[in-house]
């Protein structure tokens, strides 16, 4: 097997991690998913025990999503259960979201994920509380690590991988809702709605922890995945977030926010601003703003609370100090 210069550069960059001496190579893009204006809502919630449906439903109605009769896929961030660490999207938020989409007239709602570290998905569901939550609400779960696969040509060429084998469930859903946990990430800087889409990559084909894509460049792979399987809506769990050495070994950080958005770039940019960091310093968000969504505040209409003017920045690893510049 030969390695092209591009693959070598991307792999080297992945190894180097978050150093700021390297930029994403620009590739011709055949798609532009940006809206003239995007909408983002920041909701305040201090814990997961309240009536989250009552909080979410009126705001979801304001977005006027075309949900009626549609199949909805909720994609939480499930990695593995680490006691005491807010690693995964909280099951109560995902359960509440599922109920809301059913009330809004969705034909069906499934929760789907392919955990990136733990091979036994049932174990992750058991120990994170998802099994109980989804059973109580009669919501189905699809293990994207082991779903039926379809070979798909990537719609952009950032990673150089050319095509991806993707789960049929993700490709056939009418609406893909990315539900990330707001966290720092030791390789990507942050992990939000776009990075969360790594979870649709099937472990049965690419292995655990999906290193093939890391070797092709983590930011490049994120861009290719998000271009190929567009995110229609974002519901980010920032009630209890993570700072420091995320996505597994960081420290809990109370943010007390849920972020909803009809644009993944706008969602992630807003989350990064809520983290007190600079979204333009996150390479996949900056590059994504050229074709996946909006990053500029003047192209984002805020529903509900604004981003606070002053935020104590999330702690980041030394490699990502460049994220702490002006927001």
């Amino acid at each position: 097997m030969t390695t092209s210069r591009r693959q070598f550069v991307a792999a080297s960059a992945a190894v180097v991690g978050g150093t700021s001496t390297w930029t994403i190579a620009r590739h011709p893009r055949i798609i532009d998913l940006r809206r003239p204006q995007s909408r983002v809502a920041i909701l305040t919630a201090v814990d997961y025990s309240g009536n989250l449906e009552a909080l979410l439903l009126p705001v979801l109605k304001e977005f006027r999503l075309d949900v009626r009769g549609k199949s909805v896929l909720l994609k939480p961030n499930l990695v593995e259960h680490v006691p005491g660490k807010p690693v995964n999207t909280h099951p109560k938020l995902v359960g509440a979201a599922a109920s809301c989409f059913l009330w809004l007239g969705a034909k069906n709602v499934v929760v789907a994920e392919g955990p990136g570290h733990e091979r036994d998905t049932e174990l992750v569901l058991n120990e994170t509380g998802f099994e109980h939550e989804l059973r109580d609400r009669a919501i189905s779960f699809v293990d994207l690590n082991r779903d039926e696969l379809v070979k798909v040509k990537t719609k952009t060429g950032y990673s150089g991988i050319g095509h991806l084998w993707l789960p049929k469930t993700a490709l056939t859903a009418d609406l893909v809702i990315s539900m990330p946990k707001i966290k720092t990430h030791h390789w990507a800087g942050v992990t939000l709605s776009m990075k969360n889409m790594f979870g649709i990559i099937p472990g049965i084909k690419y292995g655990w922890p999906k290193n093939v894509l890391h070797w092709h460049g983590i930011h490049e792979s994120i861009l290719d995945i998000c271009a190929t399987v567009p995110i229609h809506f974002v519901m980010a769990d920032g009630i209890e977030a993570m700072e420091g050495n995320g996505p597994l070994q960081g420290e809990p950080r109370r943010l007390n926010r849920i972020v909803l958005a009809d644009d993944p770039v706008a969602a992630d940019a807003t989350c990064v601003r809520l983290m007190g960091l600079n979204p333009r310093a996150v390479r996949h968000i900056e590059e994504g703003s050229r074709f996946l969504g909006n990053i500029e505040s003047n192209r984002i209409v805020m529903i509900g609370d604004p981003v606070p003017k002053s935020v104590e920045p999330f702690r980041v690893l030394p490699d990502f100090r460049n994220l702490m510049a002006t927001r």
Partner: protein
Amino acid sequence: MLFDRACVGGGWNAGNSVVYGAPLAPHVEPTAIALMALQDELPNEIIRDSLAWLKHRAENLTAISSLAWSILSLFLYGVPVGELKRRLADRTGDGSQVRENAVLAVATLALRCGEMIHPFALIR
């Protein structure tokens, strides 16, 4: 290489054992499979720690695949697995609710563990 990749305190996971100075937790299935691969090695600290970790971890498992791999592995090291097999049988039922064939297969092997030739035991 397996010894080199062992987690701090025993066991294995899907990748690195330490990232940015922070040790990562072991996982059940990689630990069970690694221990089976090392069954013919002379016991050392890593094997002893990993076995102790898996034995302790298995006490509260209910997920079918992890439970089954734990049984197959612990049995090879002479650890009693009767209670684990009872739990696995309870979780598996008649198998009709197990959606993945690979999980059903490993559960079936684990439920017969001790009654027939162990599929992963070295024949000496």
